[in-house]
């Protein structure tokens, strides 16, 4: 029988089906960070049990860590305590722990792929909704709550009802300055933040085939923002090439054996999805959000829609615009901004820094703009230096911070002040997400770079044109 990629991976991990209940799903790899794990470890302690498979578990510190002076003790006592708890728990349960200062430290969804932990056909979970990132490799990867973290620590399994399947196909070519982030924001703007709730998405078509692995990670990362549990892309030569030689990937004979399996990981012809959606690559332009959820996005040259043209609750829409202090019908281009954030599990990889640098090269940061450039990991940080990107950034008036989640969720000191506008390459523009009262405009690294130079919302295509002249 023809099967979808999703069904192949899911079905091969079902330990037990519970009648009129969820499936018991075996988890190949479990990523752990400091914020959603302490209560789960406490649960294990109360039951007097150990982590069942520490060798399938990996821990890092990222959500709560400072991005300046990481060599000093963490100043905030609550953050320090949470970080210490993870270190102690990792030690007690023999889990590899890549804490602050460790060469492999970084955002959990950046370091998983970087170190070959993320593999095709695997089931991967983490107490973080952007775990969907790892689906870029043809893995089933999704975020879980702390009770579920405790389930996986204690039994390497989780209970999940099997989601429905959706395929989003985009063929055609992308226009200049249209990045994977724009593709994702476009899809979310068309589907809304709940348009894929209950589904697991497979992305298919020319646009995704032509995308780099890092671009695919950005798209899969944002699957949760349209409500999907996760998103995945069938592995291909690009995927295998990316993985080969990475530390935790199979090697030698094991690699050859695994490759045979990985090559079967695609949706069979004739396999049926519960829902199919198609878009055309040429229709997408650089995107920006104007509201307080990621579905409130428009092509950057468009204005803010009117409440009457928006599906759903008018009151909710108006509340959102009031928070942003924007009005219906206004242009996005030209709006003054105060902060720029480049980073996060969405756009904190080397290609994102290359894109940002390509646009700011030869320009200067606008004087009134505060820019936080935060690499996703130490490896990304190293590449920024080695490739000469740091020089370009410094020449344009930018500084680099140390790796972490940073202003994406503002758990540390990287908070956008109340009322200020930030063009951010992160994933959520919810009220207060980047600090109490902060106003977030989600966009690609190119749109962020353009805003950083001009100090206002700017179409990156304008600057790219100037560069070629």
């Amino acid at each position: 029988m023809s099967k979808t990629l999703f069904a192949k991976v899911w079905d091969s991990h079902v330990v037990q089906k519970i009648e009129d209940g969820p499936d018991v799903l075996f988890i190949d790899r479990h990523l752990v960070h400091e914020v959603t794990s302490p209560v789960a470890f406490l649960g294990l302690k109360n039951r007097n049990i150990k982590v069942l498979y520490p060798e399938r578990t990996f821990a890092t510190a990222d959500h709560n860590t400072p991005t300046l002076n990481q060599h000093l003790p963490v100043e905030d006592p609550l953050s320090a305590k949470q970080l210490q708890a993870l270190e102690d728990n990792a030690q007690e349960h023999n889990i590899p722990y890549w804490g602050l200062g460790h060469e492999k430290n970084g955002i959990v969804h950046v370091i998983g792929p970087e170190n070959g932990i993320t593999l095709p056909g695997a089931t991967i979970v983490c107490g973080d909704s952007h775990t969907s990132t790892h689906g870029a490799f043809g893995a089933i990867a999704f975020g879980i709550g702390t009770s579920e973290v405790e389930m996986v620590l204690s039994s390497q399994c989780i209970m999940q009802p099997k989601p429905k399947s959706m395929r989003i196909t985009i063929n055609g070519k992308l226009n200049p300055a249209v990045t994977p982030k724009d593709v994702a924001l476009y899809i979310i703007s068309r589907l809304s933040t709940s348009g894929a709730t209950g589904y697991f998405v497979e992305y298919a078509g020319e646009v995704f085939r032509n995308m780099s692995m890092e671009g695919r990670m950005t798209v899969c990362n944002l699957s949760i923002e349209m409500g999907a549990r996760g998103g995945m892309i069938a592995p291909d030569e690009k995927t295998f090439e990316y993985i080969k030689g990475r530390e935790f990937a199979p090697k030698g004979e094991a690699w050859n054996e695994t490759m045979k399996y990985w090559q079967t990981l695609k949706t069979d012809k004739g396999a049926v999805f519960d829902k199919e959606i198609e878009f055309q690559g040429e229709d997408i332009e650089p995107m920006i959000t104007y509201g307080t959820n990621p579905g409130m996005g428009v092509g950057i040259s468009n204005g803010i829609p009117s409440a009457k043209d928006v599906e759903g609750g008018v009151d909710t829409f108006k509340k959102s615009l009031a928070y942003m202090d924007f009005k219906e019908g206004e242009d996005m281009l030209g709006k003054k901004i105060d902060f720029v954030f480049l980073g996060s599990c969405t756009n904190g990889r080397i290609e994102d820094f290359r894109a940002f640098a390509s646009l700011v090269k030869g320009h200067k940061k606008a004087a009134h703009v505060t820019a936080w450039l935060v690499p996703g990991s130490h490896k990304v940080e190293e590449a920024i230096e080695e490739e000469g990107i740091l020089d370009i950034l410094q020449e344009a008036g930018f500084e680099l911070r140390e790796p972490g989640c940073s202003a994406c969720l503002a758990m540390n000191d990287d908070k956008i002040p109340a009322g200020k506008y930030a063009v951010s390459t992160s994933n959520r523009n919810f009220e207060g997400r980047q600090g109490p009262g902060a106003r977030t405009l989600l966009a690609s690294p190119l749109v962020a770079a353009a805003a950083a130079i001009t100090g206002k919302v700017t179409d990156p295509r304008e600057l790219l044109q100037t560069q070629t002249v």
Partner: protein
Amino acid sequence: MAYDKFNVLKSTAVPMPIENVDTDQIIPARFLKATERKGFGDNLFRDWRYNPDNTPKEHFVLNNPIYSGKILVGGKNFGSGSSREHAAWAVYDYGFRCVVSSFFADIFRNNCLNVGVLPVQVSPEYLQQIFSAIEADPNTQLEVNLPEQTITICSTGDQESFAINGYKKENMLNGFDDIDYLLNLKEKIKGFAENTPL
């Protein structure tokens, strides 16, 4: 973690007719630094509930004494965003045992079921009826009957059924915990792991 059993809940309800209430609103990230599950109710809807100087915002529904109860009624797509279970803990810790909406985000729904908060999904029309009933009389009682899988507006008798899978229903009725179930499957899981390379 053990939680109270859920059977039939009859209570007044707190209306929150806003769509896409995300978990960053339910509990902002800066309150996720705890290493124990304690005190999250104090920061439920923190930034909607309090001004920056920690004085209560008068117009927010949780600060309005005419609304109270163990049932929270929210707009469509309740609980979207971050997977933080702290959001479900905050809802529980504040005193809610049931959240009603016309649509829930997946992870929040799972988290609720895992911590003893019953998510009840109703039709958009019925949700509107609930909001109207509470608007007309804040003392309107709702009855959520888990064994029968029904929700009733007591004053009008309007009733709707809701779905929950049989396994989770048993768990909620008895206060059972998934981890106990999984630990009893350990031998089967070990067999499975041996055949699944790292």
